[in-house]
């Protein structure tokens, strides 16, 4: 069982989205999934009169994807989220958080600064991220 989705190429993405907009579809969201280490799949979901239409785009992870936020402003949040969580890159975002939507920012050691603690992220051998938290207090203890 599969959802009804039109397979599209990266080069025709904007043309298809413009067509959706002209046909009166409203933007719902973007589902991103990692198919393998180098490939991602993006499904753009649209709705009109409670009928769904989906566009499926499969592209290399390091390829820059044109942002659809100039056409559908609402897409800026979903695209920024995809940048943060899947490390895909969008070009021409209307509001670009530069991969800081979910985090205050990275420093050189990949430490995320949160209001209450600092979270360091390292990669294990099997590629799964390991997360350790460090509060201000225990950071001082570690330093001593």
């Amino acid at each position, binding site marked *: 069982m599969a959802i009804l989705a039109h397979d599209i190429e990266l080069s025709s993405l904007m043309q298809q989205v413009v067509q959706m907009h002209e046909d009166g579809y409203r933007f719902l969201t973007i589902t991103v999934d990692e198919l393998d280490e180098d490939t991602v799949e993006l499904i753009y*979901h649209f709705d009109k009169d409670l009928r769904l239409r989906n566009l499926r785009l499969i592209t290399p992870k390091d390829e820059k994807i044109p942002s659809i936020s100039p056409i559908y402003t609402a897409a800026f949040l979903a695209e920024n989220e995809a940048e943060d969580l899947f490390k895909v890159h969008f070009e021409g975002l209307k509001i670009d958080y530069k991969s800081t939507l979910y985090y205050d920012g990275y420093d050189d050691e990949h430490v995320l600064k949160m209001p209450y603690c600092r979270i360091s992220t390292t990669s294990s051998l099997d590629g799964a991220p390991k997360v350790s938290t460090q509060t201000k207090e225990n950071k001082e203890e570690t330093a001593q």
Partner: protein
Amino acid sequence: MTTIIPFGPQHPVLPEPIHFKLTIEDERVIEALPAIGYVHRGLEALVNIKDFKQMTQVVERVCGICSAMHGMCYCMGIEDLMGIEVPKKAKYLRTIWTELHRLHSHLLWFGLYADSFGFESLFMQFWRIRERVMDINEATAGSRVIISVNAIGGVTRDISDEHKNWILSTLKDIKAELTDLGKVILQDYTVKKRTVGVGVLTEAEAYELGAAGPMARGSGVAIDIRQLKYGAFEDLDFAPCVEYGGDCYSRAKVRYREMLQSIDVVREAIEKIPKSGELAAKVTGFPKGEVITRIEQPRGECVYYIRSDGTKFLNRCRIRTPSFANIPAVTSILKGARLADVPVIILSMDPCISCTER
């Protein structure tokens, strides 16, 4: 002179953390930039370590206000993938609990809404009524908030005849009390002064910015996923509540009408629920394929995308919550607003940061 005001993340009119960077000129907001991510939990990523049955409990914890709706939407998706026919009685029970969730969610919102413009006695009145709905949750499902009644294939509990009668009499009392409070929240001079014409979102903007739920219906966009007749709605009377003002007052009016509508839906469902029958269908095997399910939560349309390759663990479970969808719209209407109206405008969206930070 231009000033930047950080609105939130510490208790910005509601106890959940969201931040708006407001650029103001004199008293007017000229730009608003939202920031989320203070409590992001990564629940979608749990598909790697929780199997498809355990994920029912995970998705219920996306939100503490509409937990039953997340559970129902997820189960509907898995049932669709596995070709499971849910018993009619289970569909009715799910609908009763989810509409009770809508009722208590809107009551909670009305309390916070009244509090946002300083009407504290009204806040207490709404929350007092809400407790009666929470009592129904506790008596029928065993807990007040995360009620865990949904399971793949149906529900885990039944509602006894004694409880059904008690629910009907309680809802009758609640409706009478809401009718009294409606005169205040919808007709009071001070309330109208703070909400009519404030934070106007036009119908075209609501559609264009992907607004969901009362945020869209308050602007005249008649979208309600219950029109798709999921659950027991295939047998029940339903038409979406729509208002056309586009302001905070219209959004409140939509929610007020929806509370009364939910009471009617629960009453009709209790009258029509099959007297006997299975609570859940048997589940064998694993889900395979991909599916999109949608459900109307108190804050609007929730979308689940689920993909599985026929093993115990899902490949992907994407959750698009209505609060996430409403952020672009609220950011848009903040532009041009008076600084004093910002709390009311943000609250009129009914922001659920727990949902947003799934």
